[in-house]
């Protein structure tokens, strides 16, 4: 009950942030030259000014900025994300089409980065200042320092072009017409490279956090108590150290959810995946304000949701949290 209340409070606290982001973005995009109608006309290869005026008033783009903003926010309150002029359908359905791809990419990358980062961090901490630690830490630093697009492109060059082990891009083989399990395998096959690319960057952060917090927890008194009880080294690690050391990493998931969405834009572009990130990129190019705002709204909701889940998990893992607040 207490946890739910805490979560609700978190939710309420994030609403002003959300509003601020939306308003800020709306105003920012007004500064960019050209609007949806310009982009539409460019696609059609030009048109007469009278028709452009007509389209503008049809989409409500001729009203003053503040009026447009108020209209948009009013619609948003009614959970209506508006209509995309470029795609010719409601923004919500455009986003819903693309959302699963991004969710799949993000979810798998995050899980992979978290799991592998934690495991490597534990390994490094157990062999601290010996060669496995040095190797793992150096690799982590390299992953962290390398830009993701470079990673992606090198992956494509090596594994797709030179070795032809993996597909170079796309979400699935549309022509093959796979169904059921075969389709699942096909998608997984296509996602190996993108997921690895996105995960490697974040893995490094988890690795470092886990290593540091393991080393810290190992010096705490209760670890000595556990050893004084006669637990083996592995027993101490599994039963006492791990859960305590996991907490900072968990906090990081919440913090990184937003960053990961940003990373997805790059990775989706490199691997030509029809996800939310690429949609955002295209919307900016085409001045599709409604779609872009919709994406920001959905992304913000996603981040809030992830943080919400992290909070719940945290309270579950750490009994002190629920008591303190």
């Amino acid at each position, binding site marked *: 009950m207490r946890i739910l*209340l805490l979560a609700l*409070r978190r939710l309420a606290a994030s609403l002003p942030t959300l509003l601020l982001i939306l308003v800020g973005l709306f105003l920012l995009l007004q500064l960019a030259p050209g609007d949806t109608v310009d982009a539409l006309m460019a696609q059609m290869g030009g048109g007469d000014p009278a028709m452009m005026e007509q389209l503008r008033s049809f989409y409500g783009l001729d009203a003053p900025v503040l009026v447009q903003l108020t209209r948009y926010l009013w619609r948003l309150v009614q959970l209506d994300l508006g209509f995309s002029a470029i795609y010719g359908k409601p923004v919500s359905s455009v986003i819903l089409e693309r959302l699963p791809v991004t969710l799949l990419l993000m979810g798998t990358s995050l899980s992979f980065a978290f799991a592998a980062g934690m495991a490597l961090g534990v390994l490094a901490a157990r062999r601290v200042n010996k060669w496995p630690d040095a190797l793992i830490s150096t690799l982590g630093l390299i992953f962290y320092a390398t830009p993701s697009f470079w990673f992606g492109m090198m992956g494509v060059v090596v594994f797709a072009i030179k070795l032809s082990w993996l597909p170079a891009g796309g979400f699935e083989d549309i022509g093959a017409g796979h169904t059921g399990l075969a389709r699942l395998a096909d998608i997984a096959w296509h996602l190996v490279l993108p997921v690895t690319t996105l995960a490697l960057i974040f893995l490094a952060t988890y690795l470092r956090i886990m290593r540091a917090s393991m080393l810290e927890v190992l010096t*705490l*008194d*209760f670890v*000595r*108590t*556990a*050893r*004084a*009880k*006669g*637990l*083996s080294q592995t*027993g101490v690690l599994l*039963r*006492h150290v791990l*859960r*305590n050391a996991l907490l900072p990493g968990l906090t990081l998931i919440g913090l990184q959810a937003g960053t990961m969405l940003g990373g997805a834009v790059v990775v989706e572009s490199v691997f030509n995946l029809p996800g939310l990130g690429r949609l955002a990129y295209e919307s900016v190019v085409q001045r599709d304000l409604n779609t872009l705002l919709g994406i920001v709204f959905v992304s913000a909701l996603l981040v809030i949701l992830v943080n919400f889940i992290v909070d719940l998990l945290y309270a579950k*893992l*750490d*009994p*002190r949290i629920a*008591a303190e*607040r």
Partner: protein
Amino acid sequence: MSLLSIEGLTVALPKGGDRPHALRDVTLELNENEILCVVGESGSGKSMTASAVMGLLPEGVLAESGRILFEGRDLLVLPEPELRKLRGARLGMVFQEPMTALNPLRTIGSQIAEMFRVHTQLSAHERDARVLALLEQVRIPDPAAAAKAFPHELSGGQRQRAMIAMALALEPKLLICDEPTTALDVTTQAQILELIRDLQRRTGTAVLFITHDFGVVADIADRVAVMRHGEVVEQGPAAEVLNHPRHPYTRALVAAVPPLTPPAAQPLGGETVLRIEHLTKTYRKAGLFGRNRRVTHAVRDVTLSLPRGGTLGIVGESGSGKSTLARCLVRLLDPEAGSIHIDGQDRLALTKTELRRDARRIQMVFQDPYASLNPRRKVGELVAQGPMVHGTPRAEAMAQARELFELVGLDPRGLDRFPHEFSGGQRQRIGLARALAMKPEVLVADEPVSALDVSVQAQVLKLLAELRTRLGLSMVFITHDLRVAAQLCDRIAVMRQGEVVEEGATAEIFANPRHEYTRALFAAVPGQGWTPPVAFGAEEMA
């Protein structure tokens, strides 16, 4: 044959430390059914001895020579798996800080049950039953609830009881207690000591008890070993060592224990320098929709006065509000009701600016000499900073700092050093010099000696007493230690839960405590039956 015998144990520290050996040629014997107290100051190697017996020496620290014979087997050459079977089962250990020594994420019950899980084949059901029985044995109120509780949900004393239950779970032959009561309040300490002694008598367990407190030694030891710089300087039966200490170091340690009888009262004028009236400070914790809202009455309607040149001791346990009171006095905190007058000036009526300008009237010395000095500034600057802020030219302020250093017994050449280059006692002297640089009329000292070793504590107390007579300083002295209060204070106020339950002249209160809480505090002071054979401060460390 004795249960545990340590023979010629030498433990090397990693290279580059401040000394080559943590322990040198340590020889100790512990028989069954006996409590051996190992006494020493910080750095004496007493905790290292315990770690060596448990086979839990820190990484890089190795036993170089000697033997640790436990039931006839040398623990130093025993392979790790064998040693693991002994740890917990035959060798139990209780640590100093019961909050950090327990895993914060697991229930008390599961942590105690782990002993059975590791060393026995008991079923989960049997384990739970044993845990409950153990918690009952250590007299935790409501054992069933305590087993389900997490460490942060118990009080310090209850946590230490749980630790003891855990250590005794498998009825070890040897129980090692590493300062088990140091982090606890006096009344709790008395209960825990009684518990340990009681359980020891019933089970016949041998106890290796590590402490720095001679009062505790007097209460529970059968035999005593005194350690210094990694060596045992004296050992023998408790009565012998306590009442006829032979080694100069032991004598100095004993002389550093403040006796419980206050010295003759010094004559004080009738003039009042500090008057506190109906002071009240409440902490409020707001909760959403009124849930979890907490109101703590930290200081409740306190009225006290301090005669000029006198020392007012404020005595109480943790959470009694004594530190909050001190902070209100220097207005680090703003009380919501009452008044504080220094020399007739209403301190609470001052604005922030006026308060800063008039800061010199009242100054404070803090408890932790490590945390209260800015590590990035030279100590001379730290001392001179106060006067300089108030307009004293730099050269003059530095000259004053030099004088103050001499006054508090420090070498003035140290002015150019940084705080970390000084020991704890020296830092507390610096803190004192810093406060005195402002030439305050009232000095508030918040537990200024409780973070220090006994011998250093005695020196700082002596210094405070000297300064008081030389400078005519009026002091509010906050302490939890009745022995310290007895030696330094002219008047004593006993606080509990924010209220002053009793106030009066020190000699009077010590001779005839009226309030039941005061009496409980006195009853809990360790080592009451023992009068140190060497007069307080008569002999000092070489």
